C-alpha cells in the first residue's frame, strides 16, 4: 500500500512535489487541489492521471478519506486557515509555507519525532532554511558559541511564484528563527535576492558566521560530512566554495541544482524543500508499513 498524499496548492512547489511523489514506490498523489483547472500544474496532473480539484481545501473536507497525509503548498496566510480545518479532520500535515505553526523540520538533522507521528504539523521551514540550517548546525557541532550566522540566497526570478513573492517576510523570519534554534547562534539574518537574469541563474547560497577562533580543519570535516548527509536526499546539493576562515568569520557557499522535474535545473530552491518533504513522506510511509 502506498501512502496517499493530497497536495493543496498547484503552483511551482506543488507541481514539482506531485511529480516527485508519483515517481516514488512508496507514495502516491491522490488529490491535487487548487483554485483553477487551467494552471500549468493542473494540466500536468491531468496528464499523469492524478485526481484534480479546483475546490482547494474544500476537496479534502468533502472527502477526508482520499488521503493519509496532506501537503500544503499554498501560502503562509492560507496555511493558517487550512490548518484549522485539517487539525479538526485529524490529518497529519506537511507545511511547505513559512507559516511556522508546527515544529521546524530538517531531515538531515533529526527525523525520529516526525515519523513516530508525535508531530502532526510538520513545517519544512523554507528553501533557504533547508539549504543553510544543516550547515549552521554543522558549524555548531564544532563551535558551541556562534555569535552570528547570516545566509544570503540568490534564486532565479522564474522560480519564485506569486506565493513565494508574497511571503518574503515570512521566508526571512522563519529562516532566521530556524538558524538560531538549530545552531544556537545568538543572532541570525536571512537575505533573499530574486535574480531576473536570462538564462536563469542556479540557486547559490552563502553562509557567513562569526565564531571566535574558528578551527578550520574541524569545520571543514563537519561541513563535508553534513553535505554528504544532505546529498543522500538532495542529489543536486554541492559545496561550491568550501569553508574559508578570515579572522573570526567563516564563509561557505553552496549551490543547489534541481532535478528538473517541474522547472528546469536552475530551480534548486524548489528542489531542496521538496526533496526534504519527500524524505519525510518516505520515512512516514516506511513507519506506517511496519
Amino acid at each position, binding site marked *: 500500500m502506498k501512502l496517499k498524499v493530497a497536495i493543496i496548492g498547484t503552483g511551482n512547489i506543488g507541481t514539482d512535489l506531485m511529480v516527485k511523489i508519483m515517481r516514488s514506490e512508496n507514495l502516491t498523489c491522490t488529490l491535487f487541489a487548487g483554485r483553477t483547472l487551467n494552471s500549468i500544474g493542473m494540466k500536468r496532473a491531468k496528464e499523469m492521471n492524478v485526481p484534480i480539484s479546483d475546490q482547494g481545501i474544500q476537496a479534502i473536507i468533502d472527502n477526508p478519506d482520499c488521503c493519509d497525509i496532506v501537503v500544503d503548498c499554498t501560502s503562509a496566510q492560507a496555511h493558517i486557515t487550512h490548518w484549522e480545518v485539517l487539525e479538526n479532520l485529524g490529518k497529519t500535515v506537511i507545511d511547505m509555507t513559512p507559516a511556522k505553526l508546527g515544529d521546524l523540520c530538517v531531515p538531515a538533522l533529526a527525523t525520529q519525532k516526525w515519523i513516530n507521528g508525535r508531530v502532526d504539523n510538520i513545517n519544512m521551514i523554507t528553501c533557504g532554511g533547508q539549504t543553510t540550517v544543516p550547515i549552521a548546525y554543522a558549524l555548531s557541532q564544532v563551535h558551541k558559541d556562534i555569535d552570528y550566522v*547570516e545566509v*544570503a540566497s*540568490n534564486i532565479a*526570478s522564474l522560480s519564485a511564484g*506569486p506565493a513565494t*513573492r*508574497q511571503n*518574503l*517576510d515570512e521566508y*526571512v*523570519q522563519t529562516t532566521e528563527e530556524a538558524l538560531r534554534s538549530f545552531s544556537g547562534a545568538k543572532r541570525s*539574518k536571512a*537575505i*533573499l*535576492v*530574486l*535574480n*531576473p*537574469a*536570462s538564462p536563469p*541563474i*542556479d540557486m*547559490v547560497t*552563502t553562509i*557567513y558566521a*562569526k565564531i571566535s577562533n574558528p578551527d578550520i580543519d574541524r569545520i571543514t570535516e563537519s561541513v563535508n560530512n553534513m553535505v554528504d548527509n544532505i546529498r543522500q536526499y538532495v542529489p543536486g546539493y554541492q559545496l561550491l566554495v568550501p569553508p574559508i576562515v578570515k579572522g573570526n*568569520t567563516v*564563509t561557505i557557499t553552496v549551490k543547489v541544482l534541481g532535478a528538473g522535474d517541474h522547472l528546469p535545473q536552475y530551480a534548486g530552491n524548489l528542489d531542496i524543500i521538496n526533496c526534504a518533504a519527500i524524505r519525510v513522506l518516505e520515512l512516514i510511509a516506511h513507519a506506517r508499513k511496519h
Partner: protein
Amino acid sequence: MNKHITIHDPTLRDGNHAVRHQLTSNNFRRYCLAAEAAGVPVVEVGHGNGLGASSMMVGEALLTDEEILTISRESLIKSKLSMHVIPGFATIKRDLVKAIDLGVDIFRVAAHVTEADICQRHIEYARNADKNVFGVLMMSHMADIDVLVSEARKMQSYGAEGLVIMDSSGNYFPDNVAERITALVNNLDIPVGFHGHNNLGMAIANSVAAIKAGCSLLDASIRGFGAGAGNTQLEVLVAVLHRLGYTTGIDLYKILDAADVAEKEFNPVAPFSSPMSIISGLSGVFSGFAKHVETAARDYNVDPRDIFFELGCRKAVAGQESIIFEVAQALATSKENVAGSNLTLL
C-alpha cells in the same frame, strides 16, 4: 510642465556605500542639521541598501538602524525623514514597525526593475500606517519601456504615491531618460521621479531631461556623495534648476554651506568616475563584477573591458557571476578566429 520640483536627498543613505556603511553619528547629525537649515524637503538615511540591510554580504554598518533613525529624527524638523526599503532585506515585523515607531515619514520601497511584486505588502503596510510611500525601480535601464511601465503600474496599484526610477549603473543619456519618463508620466496617475548616477557625467543633464519630460521629483546627494561614481550632485542641481526657473524650496546659499559641511564630514571620500565606473556606465553592468572580470581577463588573456561590454549585451545582473568566465572564454575563442566568423560577440 511642473514648475516645482521636490528634491529627495539620499546623501546619508547612498553615501553610506562610499564609506562601506561607516557613517558616524556626527556625520548623520551634522549633515541632517545642514540639510534642514537649507530647506531640503526630504532626507533619506540608513545603510546603503536601506532598512535591515546591514549584513556581512553587503557590509555591516557602523550604526544600527535604530541609532541612525534616532539621531536623524532629532535633527530634522521641517525636513521629512525617509527610509529606503528592499523586501528580501527588510521585513515588516523586524524593521518597518520599528522604523515607524522611530518617526520615519516616508518609505521608499524598492525592487529590481522586473520584480515590483515583492513590494506589495511593504507598500500596503506603510500606507496603512499613514506613511507617505513611494515605489522605486532599481537598475531601470535593464527593462524595455513596456516592462518598465507595467512594473511601475504594479507599484501604483499597491498604493505607491509616487514612482522613482533609478539609473543604478549611470547608463542613461538624456534622450533615454526623456523617453522613459514620458512613458511613465503618460501611463501613471502618480508623480514620477528620477535618481541619477554620474558614471558618464550625465547625472545633471539626465535630471534636467527628466523634469522636461514631466518628472516632478529628483534625487540628489551633496557633493554627489553616493555609490560608485556618485549621484546627481545636489548643490549643482539646485543651482541649475533655479536658473532654469524651477522652484525647489531649497536655499541656494545654505545648500552651498551644506556642501562645505559635507566636505569636512565625508572627506576624503569624494566620488568620481573611475575607469571602472565609466566602463560600468557604458555597458550598463553592475560594477560589483569588477573583481571577477579581472580574474577572468587574466585567465583567458582578454581585455577586461571587452568582457564588461559583452556582459552588457547579455544583460548580466548581479548574482550571475558564473557567466563571466563563459564570456571570457568565448572572447578568447573569437580572438583566435581572426577571420571573423564569430563576430556576433563583438
